[in-house]
Every structure is written in C-alpha cells, then in structure tokens.
C-alpha cells in the first residue's frame, strides 16, 4: 500500500475520474485499476471528495420562498417603471429654464418665418439667450432666410 504506482500519476487518475483522458489511455487506466490497489484507492478518494461535497451542498441549500421572490420581483418592476417615467420626463428635469427658453425661441422664430410677409431684414441674430449653463443664439441668413439655431454649453 505504501508504494507509489510507477505507471500512472495522480494527475492521470484525476483526469481518469473526470473521463478526460484520451479514449485509449482511459481504457488502459481502467484496466490498470483492476490490478493496482494504489491507483484504485486514489480514484475512489477523488470520487469521494466530489460526492461528499455534492451531498453536503444538497443538504445545506435552502428553498426559495415563491411569495418573497414575487414581492422582490414586483419591487424591481416598480423601480423600473419609476426609472422609465423619470427618463420620459427627464427632458424637463435638468436646466428647465434653458430648455423652455430654447423651445420658446424656436416657436417664436417658426411663427415669424411662416408668416410669409416678413420684411427681408438685414438682421442676422434674431434672438440670443444666455444662462449660467448655456447660450442659444438664433440666426437667420439674409438671402435665403434659413434659420440657424446655435447652442453652446458654457
């Protein structure tokens, strides 16, 4: 019992237990285990470790309480809905004055443009708004009457 096996290493036996040896070698080791007590014992030990660990885990695990999980899930869904609502209304959330000013400026210039009979003015800058966060400048080209909205964060 005390002697080492000189044919196969413990690593070979480890791979044998996991059926990870090449097919021929696997069958050779299988035959060898019938005559080598040492290797046979080693294989048994390795299998024992796995089975005791597995049995232990099987005994230790708790059961999920379906009601508790459903409650957790409902909470998660509620949080997701809140988050998506925040995203929808997020457009008005931050820098609301700047956003409103931009919208107002666009509306004003749109109304002005679509009236049709406005004079072909020399003006270039139609409107400019400066806030702590950003600046918006609305420019109209002289010849083509194209409107350019220029936005810059300060």
């Amino acid at each position, binding site marked *: 019992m005390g002697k080492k096996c000189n044919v196969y290493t413990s690593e070979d036996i480890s791979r044998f237990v996991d059926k990870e040896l090449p097919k021929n070698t696997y069958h050779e080791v299988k035959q060898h285990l019938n005559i080598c007590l*040492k290797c046979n014992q080693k294989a048994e030990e390795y299998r024992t470790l796995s089975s005791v660990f597995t049995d232990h885990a*099987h005994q230790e*695990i708790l059961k999920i309480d379906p009601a508790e999980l459903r409650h957790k899930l409902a909470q998660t869904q509620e949080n997701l809905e809140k988050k998506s609502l925040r995203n929808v209304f997020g457009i008005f959330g931050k820098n609301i004055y700047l956003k409103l000013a931009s919208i107002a400026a666009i509306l004003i210039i749109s109304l002005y443009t679509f009236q049709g009979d406005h004079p072909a003015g020399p003006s270039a800058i139609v409107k400019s708004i400066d806030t702590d966060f950003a600046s918006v400048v609305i420019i109209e080209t002289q010849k083509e009457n194209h409107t350019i909205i220029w936005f810059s964060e300060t």
Partner: protein
Amino acid sequence: MNKIKANADDINELDLVERLKKGQQWAFDVLVKQYQNRLLKIAYGITLDREDSLEVVQDVFISVFKNIHTFRQDASLSTWLRKITINQCLNWKRKWKRKFKWNHESIESENDQNLFEANIKSNDPEILYRKKQFEKNLMKLIKKLPEKTRMVLVLNAFEGLSYEEIAKTLNIKKGTVSSRLYSARKKLVNSLGMSNERR
C-alpha cells in the same frame, strides 16, 4: 385555469423562454421551480453560506426576468443561468469581501483513510459519526481553497461539466481546469490524511 398555461413538467426550454419573454408570471414560477436547486447548489458551493446563496439565486432569477429579452439562445438556458449565477456570486464576493476572511478553524487531523473502506451505507453510529466528521473537515478545507479553484471544483462536482465546458464558462484554458482540479484534490486528500502517499 389559464388557456396559455401548459403543464409545468411538459414545457420545453424554447417554450419557456418564449413565455418568459412575454412576461408571463407563470413561466417565471416554472423557471424557479425547475432551476432553483441546481443554481442554489452552485451558489452555495462558491459562497459556502446558505443565506447568501439564497439571496444570490433570488437575484439571479430577478435578473433573468429583467434581461430575458437579451438571451439570444445561442447557448442553452441552463448554461446562461449558470453563467449569471457565477457572476452574481462574484459580485456578491466583491460586495461582502470581508466575509471571505474566513475564521481560522483547525482541522482535526485524524486519518480518514479507513472511513471509505468501511461500508458507507452503514448505520453503525461510529461510522456515521466519522462520516459526519469527515464531511465537516472536508468543508473546512474547501473553504480554504482559492475561490478560482473552488469554482472549478463546483462546476465539475455539482454540474458534471467537462473540462472544456468549465473552461468556456470561466473563460480559462482547458489545461488550467485540469491543473486546478488536480491541485484541489491533491490538497484535500493530503490534508484529510486520506492517503499515506504524497505525490
């Protein structure tokens, strides 16, 4: 009851995934029922804590419910669930890193060599006691294994995965799987005094 409901035992994976994607609560209950034991065992094997593994797996199911639309079905559902469980366990580890500083517990260095030579199904109180003692010692040693090694051991022992499957799951080389498993086994066998031989 509900016409869209099928028998929980009859439902196949594809059908289950489709129903989950439609947000059917019933499908979610089936998923939990079918997979909880497997996932709980994996999580327990990594965290080695009953309560934590329960929490981890609950989070896994919630994450699955939220992200089922991202499941592309190029792997099986169980493979996907296994991966999420492992990732959740790793996140759990980061979150509760201090818990990984296991209390030092000495191993009663009795020789367990003869334990498994005896009839393992024996009702002999002495054998049962020794078996329990062996399990206790083994678990103390498993706690001390590096987490990476333990994960390989868990996937091998609990899930019966091949080296290649383990390698894919953990993004490591097949040879690394083999060496980690062997190193774990060697360490455990030697520390438990199961074998007189030291190779």
